[in-house]
């Protein structure tokens, strides 16, 4: 599904990613861990097509396509979804309106008919239940005045509605208390399927107790320095990131 090969990227001329190799197959859940500044968020931003990131070397192949050739909105239409670390507030546009506009944009891209109002309402109510979001939130402006936990739940709601093939969850656990973390994790787990892949970017092992990954990669200084299964996350938790710093210097 996703094949990242020797990816180098920089921001404002500063190299952040220094040769990432990562392959994600359908249905797999990969966790990317690493200390602050290791390039975790940059990786998800580059994959989702955010402006300001320059790919200086390497390639990203997604479903057989050269992903770097696509605009951010085309990537989304092709099934890539980024759950933001800091979801954006858009006063003046309701959650529902944005989601319907997004769904119809994606449908239009695939030359499908627009979703009918009744069908949309039924779907959004069902998905809102998944993340235990009250109906009145749907009519409120996108993320405006939402708590940290509500914003993250809203990201998962959007993901549930847009049904991506590849979901990138950027520090989805940050700023969540334990109850919110459970709700968000339940939402994400419910969306796991043999066709849908996920990449979780996280600083803490805690999230992985709830969303159990198939693979764990540790990122340091813009490179994956160690890969393994879920036990790697526990090892990392026990030894701390200083252990990784050592690995990074050794490599």
């Amino acid at each position, binding site marked *: 599904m996703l094949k990242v090969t020797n990816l180098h990227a920089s921001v404002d001329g500063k190299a952040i990613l220094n040769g990432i190799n990562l392959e994600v197959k359908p249905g797999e859940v990969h966790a990317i861990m690493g200390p602050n500044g290791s390039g975790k968020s940059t990786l998800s931003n580059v994959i*989702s*097509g*955010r*402006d300001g990131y320059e790919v200086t070397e390497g390639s990203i192949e997604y479903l057989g396509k050269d992903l770097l050739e696509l*605009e*951010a*909105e085309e*990537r*989304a*239409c092709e099934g890539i*979804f*980024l759950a*933001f670390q800091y*979801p*954006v507030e*858009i*006063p*003046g*546009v*309701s959650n*529902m*309106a*944005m*989601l*319907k*506009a*997004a*769904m*119809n*944009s*994606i449908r239009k*891209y695939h030359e499908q008919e627009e979703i009918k*109002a009744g069908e949309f309402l039924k779907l959004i109510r069902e998905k809102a239940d998944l993340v235990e979001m009250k109906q009145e939130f749907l*009519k409120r*402006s996108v993320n405006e005045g939402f708590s940290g936990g509500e914003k993250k739940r809203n990201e998962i709601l*959007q993901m549930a509605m*847009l049904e991506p093939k590849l979901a990138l969850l950027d520090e989805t656990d940050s700023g969540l208390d334990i109850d919110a973390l459970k709700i968000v994790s339940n939402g994400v787990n419910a969306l796991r399927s043999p066709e849908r892949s996920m990449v979780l970017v996280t600083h803490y092992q805690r999230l992985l107790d709830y969303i159990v990954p198939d693979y764990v990669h540790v990122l340091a200084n813009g490179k994956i320095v160690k890969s393994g299964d879920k036990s790697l996350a526990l090892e990392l938790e026990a030894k701390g990131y200083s252990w990784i710093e050592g690995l990074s210097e050794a490599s």
Partner: protein
Amino acid sequence: MITANETQSWLDSHGKLSLPGSELTWLSSQRSAALEHFESVGLPGVRDEDWRYTNLRALKSNDYQLTSQSSLSIELAPTDNPRLVFVDGLLDKKASTGISDNITRLQDSFSQVENEFGSTLPKNQHGFTALNTAYAQDGYVLNLDAGQVLDRVLEIVFVSQSADTVSHTRNLIIAGANSQCTIVERHIGADGIVYLSNIVTEIIAGDNAHVDHYKIQQESNDAFHMGGVFINQAKSSNVKNHNIALSGLVTRNDIATNLLGQGAHMEMNGLVVGQGRQHIDNHTEVNHAVPNCTSDEYYKTVLDDHSRSVFRGRIIVAEDAQLTNADQQNNNLLLSANAEADCKPQLEIYADDVKCSHGATVGQLDPVSLFYLKSRGINEASANALLTFAFANEVIERINVESVRQELTHLIAGELLSGLEELV
């Protein structure tokens, strides 16, 4: 004879105009006083502080004929509401519906508006307002008795369809005590023609009267629109003015209210959408003359291409107008590097126990928000439209007439939100 500081030959023909109501002495004396005032001030120029950013060279370089009666040449969408249609400033009776004892044309009603006509106008009015008083021929008069509630929206359409014409239109909304009404004025013009629409609406709100007044300006792209909305408010009255400027080459609106009775509330909402080389100048004034009144002003401007806007928001709190609560916000969104917004909040507070706040911003669309929408599959043009709509929507939300709200949603957000107007 006009000896204004600007020689405007087109004004010569005004002297020959045979004006309705000339048999009324009070009216004749108001007209001659207005002419005298005009002779002293003339047409405004950039030398005037209040016109610094608004150049009228293009307006002055054209010649205008006074309009004469003609019938409507375009088709208007059907409506269930009472609707008066003015063509080139004069009522087209055939195209109008709902004329009644309370809803009349000014030509037929001069004798009934002696106490109200001109009662709201500022003393230091500019030349266009003076010309309007001197030469107003027609307009609508809504005269509500005490306690009367207009259960339907009163629609007024001003259509300009003759090139190189000038019309001076005067409207009066006289809302008796405890009355309620909603008026939607729409100003449209045939594209590609030049004309000057000089129009004044006076609103006299009695005790506890509720007036919701909309002005939707969609003039021709080459038109000049000089508008005034002047308001007197008695105690506990509630007046809302929604000033929506979408078109026209040069637009100037002077909107001023006098809060004259305790407990009066004024809401001024403004939405400006500028494109091309349009220039839109809104001068607002809230005059808190007595204690315990509130005013809430919210103006949003979206400018693209080479368009320009001016916002002057003046709030005057008189010395004994204690416990005034006044808020003013003006936010400007520039979609083009060539657009310009000039903003001038002007608070004059002479009382000491008041709450007055104001804010002004100028900015562009937020790139992070744009990426957020794009990452949800929305293309750049639609994401721009959605964010522009989001910006404007804080004013659109204040519109109480559903059809107007939907129309503006569609106009700004395009197809993106069609069918979703009630969800946004």
